[in-house]
């Protein structure tokens, strides 16, 4: 919400609290809290909050306090709710839609004289305006867009101004996709207000936005797990990358190298009717310890039957170094009593491949259930073998 205010887009009055008792003190300084209907939501990087019962509407101050208390006592997937946002319910009659999305050549400003759930079903009636990268949205352009949507008079000017501000925000804050749905007109003030929004910014541009202080949300409607957070933390520190997303219930754990190959390994498992327990990859010649940490986390995934240590022929990732990390991770996992009944499948090529693969083969002598293949075995054949489609 801070970012919208920074770019002059109205948002409802709101306060953020970590303790329900704070509301009384805040209410004495914020008259709207006593005069307006309120909404309370969990202020966490978490999708699907409404369904999870983490949004309560139509409250008075006492109701908001009770709702905040209830929300703050909740725990979702091991994630404790630590903050609640209490906002004014803006009285309105109509809902509209505004969005700026990135295209290869620049950005599109999308606008509609309808909003909320109507947008999906009327997608072809949403009006668009293209702005080339490096250009500013001309003032008249947004007015023309608003008129095309059917807005007239003062409201057309207000929607145009809001769209203009939204584009400025998108352009200056390295936006990928910013959607306000709905945009409403506050009955009391007549202002155009952004009631709810999806904001996707380019994480790669973090270096030029020192004021970005918000938490990044997982993009698939749940909070990150401890293991995922740990790997993300490592990923942000090291050369190259290590990635982990857990998928509960899967039987095939993935520990492949490379952003491209990892996708084909996931495909190969799913294609044969297998279930993957995670998505992972390491690439860009990461240090051995980072790969070791990833390995320990992957080996600890519950209920797994196979681990696929796959990879294409690396350009510059050192197979020896990264495999030393994986081997160390497997040894630690085994000491902890993990990997029982888990079969490990290895296929890899690249710098120092002979040494790396030989070290992996040595694990057979330490009672690991492991099969090791080199470049002469096609990339995804280890998945076929693991799932019994092909003989070893």
């Amino acid at each position, binding site marked *: 919400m801070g970012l919208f205010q920074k770019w002059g887009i109205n948002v409802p009055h709101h306060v953020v609290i970590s303790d329900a008792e704070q509301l009384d003190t805040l209410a004495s300084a914020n008259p709207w809290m006593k005069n307006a209907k309120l909404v309370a939501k969990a202020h966490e990087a978490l999708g699907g909050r409404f369904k999870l019962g983490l949004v309560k509407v139509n409250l008075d101050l006492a109701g908001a306090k009770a709702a905040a208390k209830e929300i703050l006592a909740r725990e979702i997937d091991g994630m404790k709710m630590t903050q609640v946002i209490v906002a004014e319910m803006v009285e309105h009659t109509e809902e509209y839609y505004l969005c700026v999305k990135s295209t290869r050549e620049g950005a599109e400003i999308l606008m509609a004289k309808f909003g909320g759930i109507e947008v999906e079903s009327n997608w072809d009636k949403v009006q668009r305006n293209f702005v080339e990268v490096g250009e500013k949205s001309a003032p008249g352009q947004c007015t023309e867009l608003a008129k095309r949507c059917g807005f007239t008079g003062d409201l057309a000017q207000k929607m145009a101004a809001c769209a203009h501000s939204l584009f400025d925000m998108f352009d200056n804050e390295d936006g990928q996709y910013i959607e306000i749905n709905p945009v409403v007109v506050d009955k009391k003030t007549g202002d155009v207000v952004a009631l709810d929004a999806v904001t996707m910014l380019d994480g790669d541009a973090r270096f030029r936005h020192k004021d970005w202080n918000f938490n990044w949300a997982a993009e698939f409607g749940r909070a990150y797990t401890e293991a995922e957070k740990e790997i993300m933390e490592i990923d942000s520190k090291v050369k190259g990358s290590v990635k982990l997303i857990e998928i509960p219930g899967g039987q095939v754990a993935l520990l492949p190298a490379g952003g491209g190959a990892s996708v084909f390994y996931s495909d190969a498992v799913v*294609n044969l009717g297998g279930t993957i327990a995670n998505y992972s990859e390491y690439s860009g010649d990461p240090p051995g310890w980072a790969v070791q940490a990833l390995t320990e986390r992957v080996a600890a995934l519950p209920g797994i039957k196979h681990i696929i240590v796959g990879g294409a022929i690396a350009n510059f990732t050192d197979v020896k170094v990264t495999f030393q990390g994986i081997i160390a991770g497997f040894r630690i996992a085994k000491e902890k009593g993990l990997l029982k009944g888990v079969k490990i499948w290895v296929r890899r090529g690249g710098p120092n491949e002979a040494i790396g693969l030989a070290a992996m083969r040595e694990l057979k002598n330490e009672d690991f259930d492991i099969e090791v293949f080199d470049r002469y075995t096609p990339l995804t054949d280890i998945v076929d073998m693991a799932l019994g489609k092909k003989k070893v």
Partner: protein
Amino acid sequence: MAIVANENTRVVILGGQAAVNAARRMGEFCHLCRLPFYVEAFVYPPDAGKTYDIPVGSQIVAVPIYATLAEASAAHGTINTALVYIGPARAAQAAMEAMDNPKIKSISMITEGVPEKDAKLMIKKAKQTGKLLNGPSAIGIMSAGKARLGVIGGEYNNLILSKLYRQGSFGVITKSGGLSNEIMWIISQFADGITTAIGIGGDAYPVTDFVDYLELFEKDPDTKAVVIVGEMGGNLEEGAAAWYAAKPRRIKLIGVVGGFCQEKLPKGMKFGHAGAKEGAHGEGSARAKSNALLKAGAIVPETFGALGPAIKKVYEDLKAVGQTTKAEDIAPSELPQLPRKVEEGLKSGMIAVEPLFKNTISDDRGEEPLYCGYAASELINEGYDIPHVIGLLWNKKLPTPLEAELIKRIIILSADHGPAVSGAFGTILAACAGIGLPQSVAAGMIMIGPRFGGAVTDAAVYMDYGLRNYPNDIPGFLAYMKKEVGPVPGIGHRVKSLKNPDKRVQEIIRFVRENNITSPRLDYALKVQAITTTKKDNLILNVDGTIGCVLLDMGYPVESLNGFFMLARTIGMIGHWIDQKRNQGRLIRMYNYLINWAVTPRRPVPKLPKK
């Protein structure tokens, strides 16, 4: 032929360590293909004015480093290609500069994590300037046998195995760097190898995409088929399909798309590549892309595993109509080998070297030093002491307890002899002139010689000579010494005399006697002293002579004997240096009254004779 990179490619690399690593890989490629090295310059301001030394075969090529691209381009008129290896915050700016340079035609940006907006601005600029920009996040470009931009192709042995030393018939375009290598390998196994392989990078907005390179491949008569590897996200694969379907194409298109798993995975999940994500409204799925390619007439294997056989089929069809290269494979043994490092060569028994010198006492090649085979830590834990280490390193054996005790005593007795003696005074003079510890101690050490502390070896040598040649004829020995050598080393002291004996000498002799250590040379030296002191009271056996005789009799090598005094006295010299530092000793200047001014009085300078 090949596309983008070829035998005319001349490169400038922007960046530091990563740029050097890439240049090394390019040097390996030049060695394999017997090409001249085509990296002409680096741009890296912190090292501007220096060179990076890149091995090409067994040669080292010194490649100059410039502060700006403009300077590099001005100094090397043939540069037509830039590789960008600098960080994401400045990469786009550098690429813009490269595109503005009229001589640079193509750019590969290897930098990962470039913001999308910067990529889009580069797309716009590339269009305006007509330049080809490959990347960001691209692994580079490989034109088999002709030019390699970046590390694409990986290590040397892979270049050989994937036959990247000669042109084949297949083009490759992939988003993934690792998979570009894998595809080149597959093509070398199932077909006749590649013409050019290009990684376009896995970002959301690669500046050049499948279509840009398909256009170029279509115009390259040597490329008969192109393999593209795509993945979910964006619409570049759909673009490739539309291009292929737009009109009849000469090249065969084989496409494989990753990301079918997404249908079974949580919506919105992010994969390894920045661009590998679904659009907000479900566009860009692997299935949609695969279907588009299939509809356009491309060959689309159902899985990655089926790609090899599909490529083989295309190759067989091309071969049947005489469309493939006649390129012969070269046996790996016929290809240039990467020069081995000396260590590797020695290990494999391929080479022998004549060592510079022989070492017999100490070995630090393992995890800790070994002194004559004994690990230092074990010696400590067994309770051994400094004299034992001296015994091992100087005499290659552990001293007996008695010997160790005697060595200890010799060191204690010789550690210092006050500030006035030559050694300590040398050190103090230097210390007071503000000179550091090692140099000040060295100044004291320089004093050790025939007149001060350095007579131990010579004393032992001549007493030994006397004992052997004049065992019962001391006057004869003294006459020999007077005639052939001069004063007898080990005999005589500046201040000590028979009446004022040297305590240190007495202590050593007492220890030798009390412990019944046989020392015939000491006995002989004492007999010499008995005669010399009759001539002059201070011609006594001094500490050098005593130590030398006893140690030689204990079996220490002659060469080591001066070392005992030096080692012991180092303790004292270090002490004097520390002492002066703590005293804040002032610069010492000799007093005039301590100098005998035996000089010529002042006189007129004669005129300098003209030539």
